[in-house]
């Protein structure tokens, strides 16, 4: 009897070690995947790094025929679309955060709104792109004809509009959680001093959650920078930068992600392909850094 139990615990101990090893092994795999992604990108973009150097980043011309590769037009295109989208989305994501975090945190209406916002994030980006191409583009074109710019319809502005809607949920859902975390004694104190709802939001809630809301905006930004399909379908795919500001905003352009999607399967010489991968590498670094900063801020916020 005693022996049997010992045997049992022995095999069980063996399983316990195996189990712990599996846990560790899977976590190591995870780390390896990320390192592998980084190394693959670096190795594959080596030919372009070697032959183009750091000047690649601000080279203004992207000309696969003449073998000239400059990432500047795509950096500008990416930054413009993302920031316009971000600026358009911030009032909305803040409004949603404040409404669902403070004014109406419970009840069916609030649930409905919250679920709809989450649904915005759930709709695949290809569907936004498809819809944008067939429905939004003609609308924008009429609008552009009215304000007197070239009526392209597709371009940075259109892509930003769709992108703005797509990224709202990322900042909003974080904002809701953070605003709900504001300690009620703080708010109650302010109310007791005779503050109105608006004053409480402005002087208590906003200062308290400022860094957290900023982190939410960063997460939205990271999402916007890497978004591929919807932007590819709506941005117009031109590698030359327009000269006037108006043409730049309403005209066609290209982002880093869209140029990769467009040209990756077609890049027929080494440096060309490698230049595209280097774009991917830059994109990787930028989004990862923005995301990590965002996460850091959130961690610090929720821990304090």
């Amino acid at each position, binding site marked *: 009897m005693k022996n049997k139990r010992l045997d049992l615990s022995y095999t069980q101990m063996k399983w316990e070690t195996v189990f712990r090893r599996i846990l560790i092994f899977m976590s190591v795999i995870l780390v390896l995947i990320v390192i592998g992604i980084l190394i693959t990108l670096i190795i594959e973009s080596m030919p372009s790094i070697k032959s183009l150097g750091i000047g690649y980043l601000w080279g203004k011309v992207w000309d696969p025929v003449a073998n000239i590769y400059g990432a500047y037009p795509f950096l500008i295109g990416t930054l413009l679309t993302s920031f316009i989208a971000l600026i358009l989305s911030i009032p909305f994501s803040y409004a949603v955060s404040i409404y669902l975090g403070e004014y109406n945190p419970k009840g069916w209406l609030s649930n409905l709104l919250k679920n709809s916002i989450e649904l915005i994030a759930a709709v695949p980006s290809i569907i936004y792109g498809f819809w944008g191409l067939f429905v939004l583009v003609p609308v924008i074109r009429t609008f552009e004809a009215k304000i007197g710019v070239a009526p392209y319809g597709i371009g940075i502005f259109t892509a930003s509009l769709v992108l703005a809607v797509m990224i709202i949920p990322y900042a909003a859902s974080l904002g809701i959680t953070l605003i709900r975390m504001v300690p009620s004694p703080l708010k109650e104190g302010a109310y007791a001093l005779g503050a109105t709802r608006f004053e409480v939001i402005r002087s208590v809630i906003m200062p308290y959650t400022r860094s957290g809301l900023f982190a939410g905006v960063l997460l939205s930004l990271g999402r916007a920078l890497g978004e591929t399909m919807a932007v590819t379908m709506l941005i117009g795919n031109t590698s030359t930068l327009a000269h006037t500001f108006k043409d730049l905003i309403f005209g066609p352009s290209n982002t880093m992600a869209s140029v990769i999607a467009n*040209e990756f399967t077609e890049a027929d010489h080494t440096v060309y392909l490698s230049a595209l991968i280097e774009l991917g590498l830059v994109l990787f670094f930028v989004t990862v850094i923005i995301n990590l900063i965002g996460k850091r801020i959130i961690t610090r916020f929720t821990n304090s």
Partner: protein
Amino acid sequence: MKVIKSLKVAAVAIAASALSLSASAQDNTLLGAGSTFVYPLFSKIFAEYATKTNVKVNYQSIGSGGGILQLTNKTVDFGGSDAPLNADQAKKIGVPVLHIPMASGAVVVTYNVPGLTTGLNLNGSVLGDIYLGKITTWNDPKIAALNKGTKLPETPIVVIHRSDGSGTSFIFTDFLTKVNPDWAAKVGKASAVNWPAGLGGKGNEGVAGLVKQTPGAIGYNELAYAIQNKMAYADIANKTGKFITPTLESTTASSNVELPANAEVSLTNTDNPKGYPITSFTWALIYKEQKYSDRSADRAKQLLKLLWFNIHDGQKNCAPLNYAPLSKSALKVAEKILKSATYDGKPIL
């Protein structure tokens, strides 16, 4: 215990997938990729071929440049391209590649000019200047000179081009390079160039959609597509100065040339007085030596049979889709090229 169970399941899954891996090596699907220009024709021929022989052909229209790249990487059985391999690409592949002509087609200049109903005449130098951004309005004297008696509006020209690497772009820029020295010096020919003006649409749909919806737009599409979408397209002056309407006949006239033995020939800016000048062959590209990686002789044979079908029975699909079928002499050359393909040094057909 659950862990072991799930591990077992995983192991079984891996084993199963390994099995299907070895089993599927023998399945009858051929894989091709490349030219969007020839896609409508290929999709029709391959659908027919599948019902006839039970061999399925998966052809993805990712652009000619893509087709060449994927052939180089040996990820496809054949590539489709509207441009022969250039020196750079040939060097990268390193082994002989056969160019088998499949058909020829025309690239037409589509436009959307409000109030213009009588048709439009253009020549290479004006077209080049438009795409260089030098001619910016439709009532420009240079355009007016080609269209006497037509009232052209003052609308600004919106230039539209392909955003993706495309054989259609290659044919178009090949033509401009031949007829517009300024274009040759500044831009050149390739499947993806650094467009000096305008905006890009992805694929033919992108270009056509933009042209249709944008007043004042000019673009270029393959003929079949412009016809199907009821788009207006211009008559283009050929070498003799005659304005030629792109039709099946004028395309056929251009493609009726003596092919060199390797079939790599550019048809643009044809000498034929009846020929439409923006015309090109479209080729299927395969390795001359079919024994590479772990290809079976059987697969190589299937591929050759398919291409044989393409240049014979498949040709009847050309005309309804507005591609010019291969001429008799071109067919002879194509047959000869196909017969030169080898497996392990021995001819396949």
